[in-house]
């Protein structure tokens, strides 16, 4: 695959990643947010495969495969299972209105692309605009975690942030070393398992939500 084509494909995939991020932010229901983060992981995997084809790196092929397998299939399946088990309401309850978070997200994107101008020396020629897109995903993921009440949606925000870190790693170097990538993915899966079990246990022993913890005073 030629470098030009790879740059263009990565650019387009960056646009798709941004769009799925906005979908997660605008989702009114838990399931939609989960499907959106799964789609995001698929696009991330495809971006990894494109980069692998352009650079001929075997590690990147493996990482792309693991990304699709773990983040696009395993984690969403796990999340959907937890949602079905705990019988929570399907509506996402935002702390601040969704329209406000969307506006904030637009600000974040503009900021990230603006800062990108001063980071020109860091990024690779082949990945083009991947760096600001990655930074945007990280920041909006944090925004999702901060502005949603449900633990499960906060997990979705965490995964989106993680996707952003992955994409940033792709933008500045050709991904991290294989062993670190696998370690990170294992961490994420383990984290998701622990959080999923925790949510289930909290729901079954005390009928409380994350937001209720705010009223705890020491």
């Amino acid at each position, binding site marked *: 695959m030629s470098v030009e084509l790879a740059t263009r494909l990565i650019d387009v995939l960056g646009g798709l990643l*941004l769009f799925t991020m906005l979908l997660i932010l605008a989702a*009114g229901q838990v399931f939609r947010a989960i499907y959106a983060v799964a789609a995001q992981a698929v696009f991330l995997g495809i971006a990894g495969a494109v980069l692998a084809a352009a650079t001929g790196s075997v590690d990147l092929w493996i990482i792309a495969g693991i990304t699709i397998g773990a983040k696009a299939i395993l984690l969403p399946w796990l999340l959907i299972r937890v949602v079905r088990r705990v019988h929570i309401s399907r509506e996402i309850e935002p702390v601040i209105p969704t*329209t406000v978070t*969307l506006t904030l997200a637009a600000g974040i994107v*503009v900021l990230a692309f603006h800062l990108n101008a001063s980071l020109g020396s860091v990024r690779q020629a082949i990945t083009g*605009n991947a760096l600001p897109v990655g930074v945007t995903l990280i920041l909006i993921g944090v925004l999702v975690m901060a502005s949603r009440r449900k633990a499960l949606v906060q997990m979705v925000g965490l995964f989106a942030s993680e996707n952003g870190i992955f994409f940033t790693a792709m933008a500045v170097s050709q991904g991290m070393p294989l062993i670190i990538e696998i370690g990170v993915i294992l961490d994420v899966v383990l984290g998701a398992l622990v959080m999923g079990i925790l949510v289930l246990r909290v729901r079954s022993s005390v009928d409380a939500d994350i937001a209720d913890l705010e009223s705890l005073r020491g």
Partner: protein
Amino acid sequence: MESSVAHLARTALQAALLVLLGPLVTGFIQKLKARLQCRRGASLWQPYRDLAKLLRKGTVQSDTASPFFRAIPVLVLAATVTTAAMLPVLWAPSGPSSLPLGDAILLVALLALARFLLAIGALDAGGAFGGMGASREMTVGLLVEPALMLAVFSVAVSGGTTDVGLLAARREALALSWTAPDLLALFAMLILALAETGRIPVDNPDTHLELTMLHEGMLLEHSGPGLACIVLATHVKQLVILTLVAALFLPLGLARGAAPGELALALAAFAVKVVLLATFLGLVESSYAKLRFFRVPQFLGLGLVCAFLALALRVL
């Protein structure tokens, strides 16, 4: 520069095509929805029959309506048909026209004018539902119009012109080299198209239930040939929006000359694009529920942010 006579003839032909095919697209979407609901559905030509029936009927008018009320259907239809003249349907212009008939900005403004006239008419007639429908329609319009402008501008920046025909011709030369801003603008346009054509999840074109209608609420006081004009304008507006999306994002297969083979190809390409987009509308309408009205700003907010980002990424 092409001669003004040829330009005018082409424009008139394209506008006539859009006006004539408008009801057929509505018929197609209704047929598709019926098939998805395992019904047989009305014939594809049903919208034409409805229009013919309305044209034969007499007009009944509210006592409180002013004389201006009678002019509204004609004005709405005129504004909408004028927008149809600004789009490249079959031909891509070879260069700037010697007789510019309007660009994307005027197109959006005329759509806004038609919306404004409809709302004024609904208020003029004095019906309660008309007022409610007008208020809701204007709220939706407030969210749709700026986003539509942003999405169009995002494409216009890359093409260096706001004339939709020239834009399509220049982008056709690039042969679909989509970049990230194009994708975001396309998503924004698809979301806005749902609102602008008055379809689920924003509005339900089939219902006449008083609490849910937006667009239909404004038509309640119109009857006979006047109603026919407005209904035809609605069909045409829908096709205009679809053609605008096709011209901005899928400008393929446009003819340059008047050779029959080239024209047949352009017509086939146009049909494929419109069927594709109409299928999208029908599928969304069949698989989603109508949003509560207070949820609509959230849905359209996604379109607005996408359109804004499409422009921001293009400029940054």
